[in-house]
């Protein structure tokens, strides 16, 4: 089993959205839809403030409720990994996975009638490349790799820096990490 993870450094992320546009062009995502997005969270009152930018997407959870609850088997894991894909041939558009995802990470509907989502660019990962968003980011704040390999960059970053995941209480064990 390979546990692919994305580790994103909020210290350097500027919320520029290059990752969003790079995903759209790479994956030919239809107009009006996005597989990833930016959240800006500001706390405090002027002038004691903190702003965090986060590039968000499917977490390719280790416990993917979307896969468990998919009635047709369209939502599945790619090869021997945690990458969650949707098989458009099998997807009936019933939207059970949308309800099952606590991260609101699934595109409601591709115009061709199936539920679309982030694939961690498995077509690039297969060739040894980083996902399109990771390799576009001008601040190089995004990192991608295998968490089951203790020597990987993502493993090292999580071992040496403080980090968080989104809504850990879901129990889904998300694999997108944010360095703080």
């Amino acid at each position, binding site marked *: 089993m390979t546990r692919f993870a994305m580790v994103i450094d909020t210290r350097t992320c500027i919320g520029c959205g290059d990752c969003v546009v790079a995903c759209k062009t790479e994956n030919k995502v239809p107009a009006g839809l996005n597989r990833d997005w930016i*959240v800006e969270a500001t706390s405090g009152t002027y002038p004691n403030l903190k702003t965090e930018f986060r590039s968000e997407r499917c977490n390719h959870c280790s416990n993917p409720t979307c896969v468990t609850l998919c009635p047709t088997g369209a939502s599945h894991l790619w090869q021997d990994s945690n990458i969650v894909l949707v098989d458009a041939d099998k997807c009936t558009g019933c939207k059970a996975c949308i309800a099952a995802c606590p991260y609101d990470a699934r595109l409601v509907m591709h115009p061709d009638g199936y539920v679309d989502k982030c694939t961690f660019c498995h077509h690039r990962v297969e060739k040894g490349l980083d996902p399109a968003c990771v390799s576009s980011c001008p601040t190089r704040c995004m990192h991608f790799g295998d968490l089951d390999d203790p020597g990987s960059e993502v493993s090292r970053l999580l071992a040496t820096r403080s980090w968080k995941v989104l809504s850990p209480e879901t129990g889904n064990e998300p694999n997108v990490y944010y360095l703080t």
Partner: protein
Amino acid sequence: MKRREFIRVSSLLGAGAAVAPSFMLSGCAAKPLPGSGAVTSTPTVCDMCFWKCAGHVYRENGEIWKITGNPDDLHSGGRLCTRGTGGPGAYLDPDRLKQPLMRVTDADGRQRFQEVTWDVALDFIADKMRGIAETVGPERMLMLHHGSGSRHFVHLLRAYGSNSRAEPAFAQCRGPRDVGFRLTVGESVSSPERTDMANARCIVFLGCHIGENLHNAQVQTMAEAINRNATLITVDPRFSVPAGKSQYWLPIKPGTDMALLLSWMNVLIDEGLCDQDYIERYTVGFEQLAAHVRPYTPEWVYLETGIKPDVIRETAREMAKAAPATVVHPGRHATWYGDDTQRSRAVAILNALLGSWNRKGGFYIPESVDLPEYPLPDYPTPKAQTADAYPGKWPFASQGVTNGAIEASIGEDAFFKGWLVYGTNLPQSVPNVEEKLKAAANTLDLLVVVETMPSEMTGYADVILPECTYLERYDDLRNSGEREPSLALRMPAFEPRYDSKPGWWIAKQLGSRLGLDEYFPWQDYSEKLDWQLKQVGSSLEEMQRIGVKNFPRQSPLYFRPGERVQFRTPSRKIELYSKQLADQGFDPMPVYTPPDPVPNGYYRLNYGRMPAHTFGKTTNNPLLFELTPENQLWVNPLVASQWSLSSGDYVRLASPAGAISNPVRVRVTERIGPDSVFMAHGFGHKSKRLRLTAGVGADDAGLMSNIKIDPLMGGTGMRANFVTFVQQRAKSS
């Protein structure tokens, strides 16, 4: 109280639901994976902004797929920014100019644009240009321009006999910075900026919001500095992106930066923290400067800036501790309050006191490739220069002054008789200019606009020439002064769409009609590039393969220890005290002037950039429009409650002169203080032919009635403007 503001940018996940056909209940065949078809790639140099990053344009099965950075390109770190990645939208935009258009007057007296052939358009322009040359002289033909493609038309006009030109990039943007540095250290900060942030241990930003502007290598080297735990100090009344990354955020009272700069000098000198060896070796006027800044104590400056004396001292010590690896960043857009050249001088002086100019971690010495020019006949010598149009004004302007040149184009006896406008949308780039443009358009003999998009400026033209996008043409080789010299090739990835043409072709066609064939000996521009490349051991064929070629440096990147240096100033030294300014009756050292107070019921109009867009140039790009369709008006919660405004409301703004903006979406945020509002520049387009962006968001430039002209170089200071909300929303109190 802890408030939390979440904004989901580009959150259009659900929007597709409406378009999904509901009858589709069985599965449908998956699309093939991206890149599994026939893929080809072509090198390019991005033209989504002026930074000129090298990349590759990919096509799959003949269709445009994506544009990504060229990993060999040190100029861009091998990565494109958001706008560069959105480049396919420029090519695909259905609103592009498609065919030459000429203004015609119908029998009922109404004017409209009519589609014409290139021959008709070019013959008309050449006739008018010949007429101008014969009656008043070719130098009365003015070029107003922006961007890398303008070189073809500069060449055309120089061959024709005119050296008259101006670009908003000077008098509406970085002119004061470049003049201020030239007056002080004898050189400009140039573009790309020669800041050595990659090696800096302390960086000071003054109203400079890298990360909101995406000047690519600037963003990347700032991120590197953060990763190396450099000390960031950001001075900005707004909690900007770099402010949020900084150890020190100094929320200064708007317009008081000069006082802070002088106070930092005061502390450095008072506490003996200056680089004395550098000062003695390289500067003149230290004694005068020391006496000059003595009154600007942190205690006094606190009253002006709102920055506490201990913070002023502590930040000055941080700068000194890291020096010379300290960058007091010169910024880029510098036309703020009309004393901008002097403020930029203060920045240059502060860097000199820290010994950071041309030292590692401060600034580096840029170098470009020694690329021979294609052999062509000499240009004729013009009888007049741009500055002759506004005699006696702005003695230190090193380039044409847009606002001066526009004013010199109005009326029957105006200096300029014809305009060639290339790639600049003057109604949005020059503040409060629409009436002047209308007046000029009424009396000019010729007004040509070369553009890819139907910008507002095209509405003033006699003739509109549709240029193809950067993805469909050759331009000159990129050869910028930088850390590592390099050349990069822009070449066509596609045939021009519609009836658009490359700039080089348009210039050559006009040249030919004006009898200037000898200046355009190439059939295709690639011949000229190939000749140049062969002079430096490369070729067009090689560059078509690799896109970018790096060359070894010939000169050192920094001053060597103790090196003797001749600065390009009258004294051959860094001029802390400027005799040439004193001789012309200007302050020889920068002086602080308090900003105009905010009129009752008004707010300062703060404006800036957003990462998805290059001003108004990209707002109609479908990919970037989708990411960021409109600008938002930042309003402090206290102000919002006073005016009963909530996030998401639309409100109009009014200037004291009575200008009213388009409705703009309110964003209530703590990131701005209660004395100002903020919006990104480049929205509120009026041209209906920009179908996505027309009427969306508000235009800051149209609200500016209080322009502070820099007496040294003619820059239009734009930060001294005030706005209020249009009444209907005001609570009765």
